[in-house]
């Protein structure tokens, strides 16, 4: 469903490439984890995938459509919940959903109602987004990504900063979507979420794909995913320089 071929990206003035010959294949209807330390290139990869950043070279194909040739078609297939809470705090929940529904080409009244239902926001429609709890804000961020009934859902730190109940709710919602046939690319720092949700994952480090495949293939026998992650990416702090 998602095919990235030999992606390269170097930011102007940067000594090191943000992405260095990254190739990745995510099959249709799966839950695929994307792991990496800070600065590994996860957000760069997500940005290229969602069309907000241009790769220096390489190609992105989603659902058989090349992003470079058919950006509008690819956009229509994609839903994206960025790491930031990407909505308008001064608007109510309902106003945010309606606004982004108007801006999402494939959104309908039905998809709006469905997104609201999946994120369980009905009781909070009239509340200003700025007054919501951290968990509700994450749910609103997530719901907006669902407005176009996407076939591919890219979630970047979807549960960052929320309580265990909200995290559990979001994880279950993502699992249900995957069961309905949505392909999910799930980027996070929480290893237990990947272990709970995903059958396969890729680990990025310093712009390079250091491992990808089924979780069992990434782990040495009996090893936790976190231990495997540290073994593959080493323990040196990445943002201390």
């Amino acid at each position, binding site marked *: 469903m998602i095919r990235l071929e030999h992606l390269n990206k170097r930011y102007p003035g940067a000594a090191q490439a943000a992405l260095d010959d990254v190739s990745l294949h995510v099959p249709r209807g799966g839950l695929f984890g994307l792991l990496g330390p800070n600065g590994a290139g996860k957000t*760069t990869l997500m940005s290229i995938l969602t*069309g907000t950043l241009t790769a220096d070279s390489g190609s992105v194909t989603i659902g058989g459509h090349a992003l470079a040739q058919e950006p509008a078609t690819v956009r229509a297939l994609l839903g994206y919940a*960025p790491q930031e*809470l990407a909505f*308008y705090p001064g*608007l109510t929940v309902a106003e945010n959903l309606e606004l982004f529904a108007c801006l999402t080409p494939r959104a309908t009244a039905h998809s709006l109602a469905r997104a609201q239902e999946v994120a369980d926001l009905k009781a909070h429609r009239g509340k200003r987004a700025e007054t919501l709890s951290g968990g509700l804000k994450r749910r609103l961020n997530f719901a907006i990504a669902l407005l176009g009934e996407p076939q591919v859902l890219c979630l970047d730190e979807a549960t960052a900063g929320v309580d265990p109940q909200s995290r559990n709710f979001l994880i279950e919602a993502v699992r249900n979507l995957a069961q309905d046939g949505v392909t999910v690319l799930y980027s996070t720092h929480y290893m237990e979420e990947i272990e709970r949700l995903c059958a396969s994952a890729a680990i990025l480090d310093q712009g390079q794909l250091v491992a990808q495949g089924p979780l069992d293939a990434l782990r040495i026998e009996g090893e936790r995913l976190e231990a495997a992650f540290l073994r593959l990416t080493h323990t040196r702090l990445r943002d201390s320089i």
Partner: protein
Amino acid sequence: MPYPMRAFAALCGKELRLLSRDRHGLLVLFAVPTLFILIMSLSLRDAFRADAGFSIAVSVIDEDGGTLAHDFVGTLWQQQGFRQVAAEDADVVIHVVPGFSEFLATRHELAASFRDGVAEPPMLQLEFQPSVLPQLRAAAALSVRQCLLSVQSDYLMAEVMGYSDAEMQTMRYLGDPRRLPVEERYRSADGTPAVTPTSVQQNVPAWLIFAMFFAVIPLASAFVVERQQGSLLRLRVLGVSSTLLLASKVLPYYLVNLLQMVVMIAIGVWLVPALGGDRFTVGHSVFGLWMIGTATSLAAIGLALLVAVRVRTTLQATIAGGAISLILAALGGVMVPKLVMPATMQQLTGVSPMAWSLEGFWDIVLRQGGWQDALPEAMSLAGFGLSCLALAAGLLRRNSTNTTTTP
């Protein structure tokens, strides 16, 4: 509704909704200019009146005590603008020096030698407080000299030339510069009598223009918040183009600017006169007013969006937006009327789009011109606004494609 129209309408609605909930933004856009118009129009009311004269606290110390000195002091107190106070409270103390009366009575006999260069001793000494403005000092000194001249002329006509009372009345009439038959009037664009400039005619357009340009602060701040919170990123993922994004900000703020225009003009027409000021006169061309208002709005929004795409934080937006607006206002004759500036500063006003706008508004509301008279200024403002918008769109597009995403 086709997608681009639907998206445009939704983004415009979002902008208006957010602005209507932004109390600080509304305060900046409506309350601040309203207060400026009221304060400046009322406090500068008399400065724009040709017949307003002056008022100064005066103390006279007569060290001569003669008849002519007595006549001079009597004449002085008949003048408008001189308020008699004690010496310690006076803005100016007038010393009538000893020998005043004798000297005034013989001055005509010595005039030939004074013409030949003999130094003339002072008859009066005027001591002003340093806090007295130069214009007030000049007006008061001129009035004192006219009193002195009047006493001297009366003495010469009565005692030296032996005029009768009737002849003296005639000579006084002929010698009064205010009675000379000279017609003064303000000329409009088509040569017909124009509206008399008042502080409200100056201040309503000036602070309206300032308010329109001050939209840079809420607009740029909202844009920064949009970028920092990731809403802008989400719009880009959804395929909202830079052009659509900027256009969706131009229309709501244009509507806000039009509302500012209606509110500020209404304040000038109704509120300022109710508080004792002059009434604002709109002029004959409502279309001309709309045209120059629209062009000013385009320039203001273009500049605001250019600032918005350049700044990175709300603090930068507030500081840069506020500083640019204040500098353009100071240069453009909004804060200090262009007419009172020195020639070099008057030339410098040409660099400020606020000055172009002020001239355009004056073409309509002061010179009573039609829309054609304000067209050159409107074209300059529109050109400036469109250039800023094009630059902002270019910068936004460049940022969007390569540099804004955090690695």
